[in-house]
């Protein structure tokens, strides 16, 4: 299996997709607690055109562009009153059409307590060889699949209803405040049957048969909130990423630190120890350089005492590692030097594919920040939005 231990940028031998082509523009998709906004720019990445709100008043947890066709957008939506649904656009949001069958659990047998999807939390396009296939993760935790571009969704019942798998899933006690989530659905670009998922709480799980069978993949990953700090499952991965050109390299920003895994190994390595002690290694998002598997960024948050989940000390900063997590550098030029108490949620940080990659994130206080020099400097490209749940760059 290929490894990238040095600084050599990886030459892809993976299936070609639009995502691998040289970019000419950037689209930022911002999903918020009260609607969605799209931001367009050209190759200069200097000025941005705002398009929105879409779905004003709807809770949008994720908004994702299909890299395989470059034009299909899926939006995971609900409202305070109405149940969850998925909207689909093939014209960059000029028109939207609702899914015919959005993600929903199987109906429970008579007399049994069934689960109901509260919201779809995560959307992942399928493998390039499977156009039209999408995956969705929900709260309560469930995994769903569409084979027609997001029009109809079916449950992966072996995950959603199997008693063993249900034991892996978080409960109200160890889920996030608005419900346990299935997220970080990852499809190996070399093999459409090789999947990873993250459960908060629950841990990371792997399938090599397109989702029929799953096994925990949590060795080495801490869960200090349990009597056994390294259980087989029960961990809380906040965000898991696979490097797109080196699919053997995984990173996760976890409730208990930052971890790296180089397959075929099955034991995660704690790479958060090099973070400043005053900052710590807790956060939600992690993003990876598209061509360098040793370079990654995190946005730490305060996980001390009662878990304020704010920028540590009120001083927002991104941290970058260029050596696979051994050491970290603070990047905060442009951010408030003090009294900045926002944070960044797990799918609210993203990256483009330009040389001199652009980084983007959205804050809990409704700001979108951008860097076009790999994090060296930052400026806001949008302010005064609702609380931001997701930011995707394409």
């Amino acid at each position, binding site marked *: 299996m290929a490894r990238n231990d040095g600084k050599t940028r990886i030459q892809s031998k993976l299936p070609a997709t639009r995502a691998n082509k040289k970019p000419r523009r950037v689209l930022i998709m911002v999903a918020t607690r009260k609607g969605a906004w799209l931001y367009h720019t050209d190759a200069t990445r200097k000025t941005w055109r705002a398009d929105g709100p879409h779905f004003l008043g709807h809770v949008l947890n994720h908004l994702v562009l299909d890299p395989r066709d470059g034009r299909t957008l899926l939006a995971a939506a609900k409202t*305070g*009153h*109405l*149940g969850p*649904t998925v909207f689909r656009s093939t014209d960059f949001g000029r028109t939207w059409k609702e899914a*015919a069958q959005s993600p*929903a659990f199987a109906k429970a047998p008579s007399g049994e307590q069934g689960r*109901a*999807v509260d919201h779809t939390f995560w959307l992942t396009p399928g493998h390039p060889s499977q156009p039209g296939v999408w995956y969705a993760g929900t709260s309560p935790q469930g995994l769903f699949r569409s084979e027609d571009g997001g029009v109809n969704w079916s449950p992966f019942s072996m995950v959603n209803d199997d008693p063993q798998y249900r034991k892996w899933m978080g409960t109200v006690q160890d889920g996030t405040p608005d419900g346990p989530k299935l997220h970080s659905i990852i499809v190996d670009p070399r093999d459409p049957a090789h999947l990873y998922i993250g459960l908060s709480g629950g841990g990371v799980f792997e399938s090599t048969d397109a989702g029929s069978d799953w096994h925990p993949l949590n060795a080495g990953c801490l869960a200090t909130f349990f009597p056994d700090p390294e259980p087989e499952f029960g961990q809380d991965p906040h965000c898991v990423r696979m490097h797109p050109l080196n699919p053997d390299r995984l990173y996760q920003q976890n409730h208990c630190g930052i971890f790296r895994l180089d397959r075929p190994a099955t034991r995660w390595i704690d790479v958060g120890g090099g973070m400043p002690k005053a900052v710590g290694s807790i956060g939600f998002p992690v993003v990876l350089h598209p061509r360098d598997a040793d370079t990654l960024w995190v946005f730490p948050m305060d996980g001390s005492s009662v878990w304020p989940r704010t920028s540590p000390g009120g001083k927002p900063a991104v941290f970058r590692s260029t050596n696979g997590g051994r050491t970290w550098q603070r990047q905060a030029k442009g951010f408030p030097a003090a009294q900045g108490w926002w944070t960044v949620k797990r799918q609210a940080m993203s990256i483009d594919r330009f040389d001199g990659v652009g980084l983007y994130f959205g804050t809990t206080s409704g700001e979108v920040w951008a860097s076009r020099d790999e994090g060296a400097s930052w400026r806001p490209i949008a302010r005064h939005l609702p609380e931001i749940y997701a930011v995707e760059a394409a």
Partner: protein
Amino acid sequence: MSAVHVRIPGLLRSYTDGAERVDLALSAPALLGDGLAELDARFPGLRFRVVDEQGKIRPHIKMFVNAVQARDLATPLPPGAELMIVGALSGG
């Protein structure tokens, strides 16, 4: 057939082309579940926004049949009934 008159709240009028009232013709005797099935047949997707996959009325949705709150889909819809769907207070 049994006529049922449905008052559509603002949050569902994107499904009814803006209609505030919809009249249904149901086979008698009809239940609330029958009325919602008919609504969904005419306005696809509407039912799942107010009733979950286990057949329960969603937590922040209330339904009234002739001004009496209906707790489940087995509530009878008498001929001439008025069904009122309401989005209850939710969030800030």
